[in-house]
C-alpha cells in the first residue's frame, strides 16, 4: 500500500517531508526525505526516519519497490501554531498507484491544509477530472478555527428515525426550513 507522510516540525524552524512506501505487510520503507533548516530529524508514522538537508534543496528521490523516482521539494514555513503544521506548499514524491504515478501537493495556510492537488497524474487517464475535484478530509483538530467551521450536511453512520432527532443533521435541516 502506498503511503505519503507529511511531517511538520512544531517547535523547530525546519521542515521535514517524509515519503514512504508501505508494503502489504505494513512495514514502512523510507524512500526519500528532505529537510530545510538545520539540525532536525523527525519520525513519521510507521517508523520511518528523516535525514537532514540544507535549506532550499531539491532532492532527487530514490526509488523503492513499487515506487517511481520523483523529485521532492519543500518550502519553508514561517508561522507555527497549535496544529503543528507550518504554512507552505509541500510537494510529495511521485508514487505508483494502480492507475499510474501520482504526485501530491499539499498547501498549508494558517495551520490548516487548505488544498491537496495532484499536479502529476497519468496523461489521458479518465480519472483526471475526478482527481481534480477531490478533497482530502480536513481534521477539525488541525484547524485553528474549529468552532467557526461552516457545515452544510453531516455524514455519519446511519441513524434511526428516532436518532435523527438528536442529530446534527436535524439541526441543519431546521435551520434551513
Amino acid at each position, binding site marked *: 500500500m502506498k503511503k505519503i*507522510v507529511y511531517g*511538520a516540525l512544531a517547535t523547530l524552524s525546519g521542515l521535514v517531508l517524509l515519503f514512504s512506501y508501505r508494503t502489504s505487510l505494513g512495514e514502512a520503507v523510507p524512500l526519500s526525505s528532505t529537510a530545510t533548516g538545520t539540525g532536525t530529524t523527525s519520525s513519521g508514522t510507521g517508523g520511518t526516519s528523516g535525514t537532514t538537508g540544507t535549506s532550499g534543496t531539491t532532492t532527487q528521490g530514490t526509488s523503492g519497490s513499487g515506487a517511481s523516482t520523483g523529485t521532492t521539494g519543500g518550502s519553508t514555513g514561517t508561522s507555527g501554531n497549535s496544529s503543528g503544521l507550518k504554512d507552505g506548499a509541500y510537494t510529495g514524491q511521485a508514487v505508483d498507484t494502480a492507475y499510474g504515478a*501520482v504526485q501530491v501537493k499539499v498547501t498549508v495556510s494558517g495551520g490548516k491544509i487548505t488544498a491537496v492537488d495532484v499536479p502529476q497524474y497519468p496523461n489521458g487517464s479518465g480519472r483526471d477530472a475526478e482527481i481534480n475535484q*477531490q478533497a482530502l478530509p480536513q481534521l*477539525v483538530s488541525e484547524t485553528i478555527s474549529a468552532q467557526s467551521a461552516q457545515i452544510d*450536511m453531516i455524514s455519519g*453512520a*446511519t441513524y434511526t*428515525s428516532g436518532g435523527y432527532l438528536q442529530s446534527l*443533521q436535524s439541526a441543519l435541516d431546521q435551520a434551513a426550513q
Partner: protein
Amino acid sequence: MSAGHARRAWVEHLMGTAASIHVVGASCDSGEAEAAVAACFAELREVERVFSPFRDDSDVSRIRRGELAIDAADPWVGEVARACEEAALATRGMFSAHWRGWFDPTGYVKGWAVERASAHHLAPLMEVPGIVAVGIGVGGDMRLRTAPGSEWTWHVGIADPDHPGEVLATVDVRDGAVATSGTAERGAHIVDPRMGVPARGVRSATVIAPDLTAADVWATAAVVAGRDLSWISAAPVTSGLLVTGEGAVRRWISGVEVAVATAA
C-alpha cells in the same frame, strides 16, 4: 454554508431513517424545486415498498419466504441483484447481499436508490435559473450537486463516532457523494461476509466518491477491511477517512494514504 444564498430544506422519514433535501439559491421556493423534491421522495418510497425487509409484503420479503422468484419480481430487484454481484466481485467479497444466508440487498439499496432518485429528479434542478446547488442526505449518506459556474461548495461535516454531536473532520464537495459506515449509531451491525463475524476493527469509515452507489458500497467494505487499506488504490473512490477501533484517524486521497506527522 456560503452567505448570501437562500436555502430550503425538506425532511421525510423513510427507509427507517430521515431523508433531507436541501435546495440552495433564490429559486429554492419555486414550483420546480417543490415538484422535484416531492418526486424524489416518492421514488424513494416506491423503492422502499419493493425492497424493505421490514414489510411482509415487499418483494424482498416474499423472495426470502420463497413466494417470489427474483426474475418474477419488480425489475428493480433483478437490477439490484446483478449490481450486488458486481459489488461483491469488486470488493473481493467484503460486500455481500447474501451474508445472512439469503438475498438481502438492504446494504446496497439505500445508496443505489438515493443516487438514482437524485439523478432523476434533483439533477435537472441544476438547469433552473436561480438554483445553485441541491443535495440529498439519507441517514448520513449524501449525494450533492452544484450548478456549473456557481461558486457554491458543499461543506460536509464528518460525525465523530466517539463524541455524539461533534464533527471530527470536514470535506468540501461540489459534485459527488459522501457515505459513512460504522458502529457508532447501531453497534457492530456490519458483518464480514467472508467470516460471518461482526467487523470491529473500524469505528467509522467515510468515503467520498463520484456517485453514492460506489461511496456506500466502499464505506461498508472499508469497515470490513479494517486495518488493511490496500483496497483504496483500486476502488473508484476519491478520498476518505476512517477511525480505527483504537481511535486513530487515517486518511487517503487518490489511492494514497496521507498522514500528517508532527515531529518532536
